[in-house]
C-alpha cells in the first residue's frame, strides 16, 4: 500500500492565500508605509551631489574610525569610483533599501533576542524558527513576498528582513545570556527593577555582542537586497541581474564592485561603532 503524499506544499499555499485574502488591507498599508520610507530615504540621499556626499562620508569615517585616515580616504574614493562607473543613483537606491530593511529587521530582532534570553519558553519556540529561517534557501522567501506585495521594492524588503533577522536575534540572546552571573546579582542585590536590570546592566554589558549582530544584520541585508532584484527590487542588484541576462561581463562586474564598496563601508562603520 502506497503512503499518500502528505500535502505540506499545498498546506503552505493555503496559508499564504488565506493571509493574502483576509489581511489584504493590512498588507497594503504596510506596503505603502515602507515604500514611502524607502523612497523618502532615497530622495534624501540623492539631494547631495555625489562629491559632497563622498566627502561627508569620508569625514564621518575619519571620526567614527578614531582618526583612521585609511578608512576615510578609502570611503571617499570608493564612493567616487561608484559615481565614475555611473552607478550613483542605483547605489543610493541599494543603500536606502539596505538601511530601511536592516533597521526594521533590528527593530524586530533585538526585542525578540531579549525575550528569548529572558524566557525559557520563548527561547525554545524561537530557536527552531531561527534554524528554519537560516537554512531555508533565501530564494524561497521571495515567493510569498511576491504574492503579498507584488513586484518591487517592498517584497524585496520583506524577504530581506526575514533573511537578515536571525543572526541579530541569536547574538542579542547570546550577549544577554553571557552577562556574568555576578553582574546580574549586583543588579538584584542593590534592588533594581527588572527593567533597570535590563537597561542599566544587561544591555550595556551585552552591547559588543549585540553590535556584532547589528553588523551581521546589515551585511546580510545587503546580500539579500541584491538577490531581491529578481522580484523587482531596484538598485545595484538589478544591474547585476541585467548583466547576467545579457551575459554582459563588464556591466555585471562593475555593479558587483559597487556592492563590494558599499559593503566594506557599512561593515567598517558598524564595527567602529561597537564599544571595545
Amino acid at each position: 500500500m502506497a503512503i499518500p503524499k502528505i500535502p505540506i506544499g499545498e498546506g503552505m499555499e493555503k496559508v499564504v492565500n488565506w493571509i493574502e485574502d483576509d489581511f489584504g488591507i493590512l498588507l497594503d498599508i504596510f506596503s505603502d508605509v515602507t515604500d514611502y520610507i524607502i523612497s523618502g530615504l532615497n530622495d534624501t540621499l540623492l539631494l547631495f551631489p555625489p562629491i559632497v556626499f563622498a566627502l561627508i562620508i569620508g569625514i564621518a569615517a575619519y571620526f567614527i574610525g578614531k582618526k583612521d585616515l585609511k578608512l576615510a580616504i578609502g570611503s571617499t574614493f570608493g564612493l567616487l569610483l561608484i559615481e565614475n562607473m555611473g552607478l550613483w543613483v542605483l547605489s543610493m537606491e541599494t543603500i536606502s533599501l539596505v538601511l530601511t530593511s536592516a533597521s526594521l529587521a533590528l527593530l524586530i530582532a533585538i526585542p525578540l533576542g531579549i525575550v528569548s534570553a529572558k524566557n525559557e519558553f520563548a527561547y525554545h519556540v524561537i530557536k527552531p524558527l531561527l534554524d528554519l529561517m537560516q537554512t531555508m534557501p533565501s530564494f524561497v522567501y521571495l515567493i510569498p513576498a511576491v504574492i503579498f506585495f507584488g513586484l518591487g521594492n517592498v517584497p524585496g524588503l520583506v524577504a530581506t528582513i526575514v533573511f537578515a533577522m536571525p543572526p541579530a536575534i541569536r547574538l542579542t540572546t547570546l550577549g544577554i545570556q553571557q552577562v556574568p552571573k555576578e553582574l546580574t546579582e549586583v543588579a538584584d542585590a542593590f534592588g533594581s527593577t527588572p527593567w533597570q536590570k535590563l537597561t542599566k546592566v544587561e544591555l550595556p554589558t551585552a552591547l559588543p555582542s549585540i553590535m556584532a549582530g547589528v553588523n551581521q544584520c546589515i551585511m546580510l541585508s545587503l546580500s539579500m537586497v541584491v538577490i531581491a532584484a529578481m522580484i523587482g527590487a531596484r538598485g545595484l542588484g538589478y544591474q547585476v541581474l541585467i548583466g547576467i541576462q545579457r551575459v554582459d561581463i563588464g556591466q555585471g562586474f562593475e555593479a558587483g564592485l559597487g556592492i563590494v564598496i558599499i559593503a566594506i563601508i557599512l561593515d567598517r562603520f558598524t564595527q567602529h561603532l561597537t564599544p571595545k
Partner: protein
Amino acid sequence: MGLSGSGKSTLLRCINRLIEPTAGNIILDGEDVATADSEKLREIRRKKMGMVFQNFALIPHRTVLDNVAYGLEIQGISKEERDVKGKEAIETVGLKGYEDSKTSQLSGGMQQRVGLARALATDPDILLMDEAFSALDPLIRSEMQDELLALEEKMQKTIVFVSHDLDEALKLGDRIMIMHDGQIAQIGTAENILTEPADDYVSKFVAGVDRTKILTAETVMKRADPVISINSSPKVALQLMREHGISSIFVVNREKHLKGIVSVDDAVSGSKAGKTIKDVMTSDVTATNPDTPLNELIPIIENSSPIAVTKDDGKLLGVIVRGSVLGALTIEEV
C-alpha cells in the same frame, strides 16, 4: 566560614534572597525577609543591605563614580546628590582622585575598594561580603582586612563576611560560624572556637592555626591570688608566698589597683628591717592589657615573669606566668 561546598555563599545569598530559601525565616528589624513580596524585598535590598562580591562584579562600561552610585541611581536619586554621596564613599575607601577612571584600569585591590564603596554608598545597615578578599594578593588582602576593621569600628555596621580562609575569619570575625556540609558546625568567638571546638571537624579545622595570634592575655591569665594590700607588712607577704609556693606577690590598694610587686628577697630583708610593704615593693611591674595577643607576650615573658594583666584604669585582673602560656599553646596536642 567553611570549605568550598559547605554552603556558606548559598546561606549568604539567602539573606538577601539572591537565592530563594526553601524553608525558614530571615528576621530583619522584626520583619521576615523570606516572605516579603517583590516590592518590599526591593526596598530592603535598596535601603538595608549592601553586597560585595568575590570577583568585584563592577559594571564594565561605567566609571568608578557611576559604579559606586549605582545603588543610588536605581533609587531615583538625583545626579547631583548621588555624585556627592558617591564621592564620599570613594573617599572613605581611599580612592579619591579615581572617580572618573574606568574600572578596568584599576588593580584588583582598587577594584574591590570600588566594590566596597558601592556597597557603602547607600548607607545600608548590613554589609554582605561574599569572599570579598579571596581574589586579592596576600599582602593586599591583609591591608584590606585592616581597613575593613577600621571602617567597621567607625561606621558600626553589621557585616556578614563569608570566607574560606580561617586566618581571615579569626582576624575579622567577632563571632564566627563554621559550616560543614550545609550545617552549622559551631558558632562562637575566635577564642571559643580555638579553645572549645564543638566537634572533631572543628578541632581538625583549627588544628593548624597559629594560636599565639588569636589567644589573648585574658584567656591564658590566672586569677591573681593571692595579692597583698599596700598597707600590709612584709611579714604577711612572706607568709602568703610560703603558703602558695610563689616567689613574688602583687601589691594592690583597696580598689584592687595594681601598685607594685614584692619579691621574696625584698620581703625577707624588709621584714628584718621592720619596713612596710610600701617601702620594699618595686612599682616597676610588667603589665599588659587583657586584649593583647599572646605572640606579643611571648618575647616579654622570657625576662619578666610574672606579667600582670590590668584594665586601662589599673585594676588588676590576673597574672600570667610562663607555665600558663605554654599550657595554652599545647592544649590541643593532647
